[in-house]
């Protein structure tokens, strides 16, 4: 396991894209953790509304006078928190169910029909519909993202387990008297862990996008400061397009979302490249 990790890190070190992604993500994580120390103001505190950037408010203030820079810094917390909590829970559920569905064939067949059904349902429209009926709060959002996130992981893990369980070494271990639980935990799970990690990162980037989209549409938690929320209020502001307001009100928030997704995409790509090395065929 330790040797695996070292070999893995060595491989990852060679991926420029992966390192760039990791750098950006670390930056955002640090900002999120130390938000209270970095942010100049309490993001809920109200000052003079719609100020242009000045020495007091580096990115000006919004329509009700809150400091936009502080909003952005605290917004990092919300976006990352929702993204990682949802994707960790979704991966956990998806992996467990994927393992079981892949290992026990009959259950798996029916289970996969349900998963296919889930996957064919358009995520965001459904979330919009639910959000319209539910009172939006962070935990409701997380619940929704988990609810619609696990089938992706379940499906991928299942197909991997299917191919693993038919390897001769699984039969061999069974012949040694090992039970199903032992085989699943000791011989199959370790082989799918790398895939789970890739899936978790991908899922996190989906959640960041989904959360931003929902908030942008005004369906996020109105009491928390998220990047999508900032964009929502900016978009609603009457003169946003015909003045310079968008430059400090819209652009930074949009770029924060973009760079978070970018970092996760890059990391995900680099990981996938490592985990699934397409066998470079040597003709020997």
């Amino acid at each position, binding site marked *: 396991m330790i040797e695996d990790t070292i070999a893995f890190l060595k491989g990852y070190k060679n991926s420029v894209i992966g390192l760039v992604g990791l750098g950006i993500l670390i930056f955002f994580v640090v900002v999120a953790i130390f938000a209270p120390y970095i942010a100049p103001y309490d993001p809920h505190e109200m000052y003079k509304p719609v100020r242009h950037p000045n020495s007091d408010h580096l990115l000006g203030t919004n329509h009700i006078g809150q400091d936009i820079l502080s909003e952005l810094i605290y917004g990092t917390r919300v976006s990352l928190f929702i993204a990682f909590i949802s994707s960790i829970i979704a991966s956990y559920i998806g992996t467990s169910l994927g393992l079981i569905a892949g290992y026990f064939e009959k259950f798996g067949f029916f289970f996969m029909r349900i998963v296919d059904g889930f996957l*064919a349902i358009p995520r965001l429209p459904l979330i919009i519909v639910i959000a319209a009926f539910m009172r939006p709060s962070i935990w409701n959002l997380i619940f929704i993202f988990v609810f619609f996130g696990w089938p992706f992981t379940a499906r991928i893990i299942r197909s991997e387990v299917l191919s693993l369980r038919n390897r001769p070494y699984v039969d061999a271990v069974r012949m040694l008297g090992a039970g199903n639980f032992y085989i699943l935990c000791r011989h199959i799970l370790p082989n799918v862990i790398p895939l789970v990690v890739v899936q978790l990162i991908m899922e996190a980037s989906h959640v960041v*996008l989904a959360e931003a989209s929902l908030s942008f549409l005004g369906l996020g938690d109105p009491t928390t400061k998220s990047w999508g929320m900032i964009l929502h209020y900016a978009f609603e502001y009457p003169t946003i397009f015909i003045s310079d307001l968008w430059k400090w009100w819209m652009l930074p928030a949009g770029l924060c979302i973009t760079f978070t997704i970018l970092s996760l995409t890059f990391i995900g790509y680099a990981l996938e490249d490592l985990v699934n090395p397409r066998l470079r065929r040597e003709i020997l």
Partner: protein
Amino acid sequence: MHKITKIATYGIIIFVILSFNFFLPRIMPGDPFAFLTGDPSTDMPVVLDAGIKAKLLSYYGLDKPLSMQYYDYIANILHGDLGWSIYYNAPVWDVLRGSLKWTLLLVGTSTVIYMASGIMLGAVSAWKKGKRVDAGLLTFILSLSSFPSFFLGLLFIILFGVDLGLFPISGARTPFMDYSTSFEEIIDILHHLLLPAATLVIAHIGGIYLLTRNSMLNVLGEDYILTARAKGLREGYIMRRHALKNALLPISTMIALIAGFMITGTILVETVFAYPGVGRLLYEAVLVRDYPLLQGAFMIITLLIIAANLAADMIYVYLDPRVKHK
């Protein structure tokens, strides 16, 4: 075997969606039907006049037992009766029909463009794997597709619509305009279409590009590519005829997911550009809490996706001779 499972899956999906549509307002906390039964304590921004209220009450039949309600609901849908829109004060289906064509135009155009260019770029990237072209394309497209579609749309509006004044920033056609020729009308529609379509294309090209690239890389390692080379065929010909068709097989199974993302993007882009499609309608319905319209729009969107899946299945059968014979 394959067909039966597929049909069953679609059956399940449609059933789940319909039931979902039916139960959601009925089980949600805070009684969303309060606006009908008239509890004044809710903060619903809806004021109903007596006529509409009567229509809705009879449509939902809230006084009947749940099973009867469900039966009526399914029967109504089968008759094309999706209920009555509160906001537009018109049958939901009539409201939807007007916007459906715009959505189809927008989604259709951008799907064709982003699929074609994504597949092409992905194939080129795989072919030139490890070279500068590949690295450049990969970084560029991955970065570009990290932009959320709505943010990209906002930037386009500011840049091309406001600053440069090249394109209209909202709507599907110029309001109150009399077209002297139908050619003029088409130009106007295309003019309005370009920015939202471009946004959708850019926001979604990444997925298909990456899929094609991966799939193509796998295929290029196959023995039959070597066979083709051993025959003395040209590289370009091998790519087109031997590699691409095989590489598209796994992609066509991902259409469901791709279509899902596409619809999501459409809702956001239509909202940003005030494009009068189904997605925009869905958003509007949320804002004004027009639940019948909301549910109708959602159902139409789901059916669109299922149609996309069906199309994907047919493409798969066309691409893979092995399915036909089994």
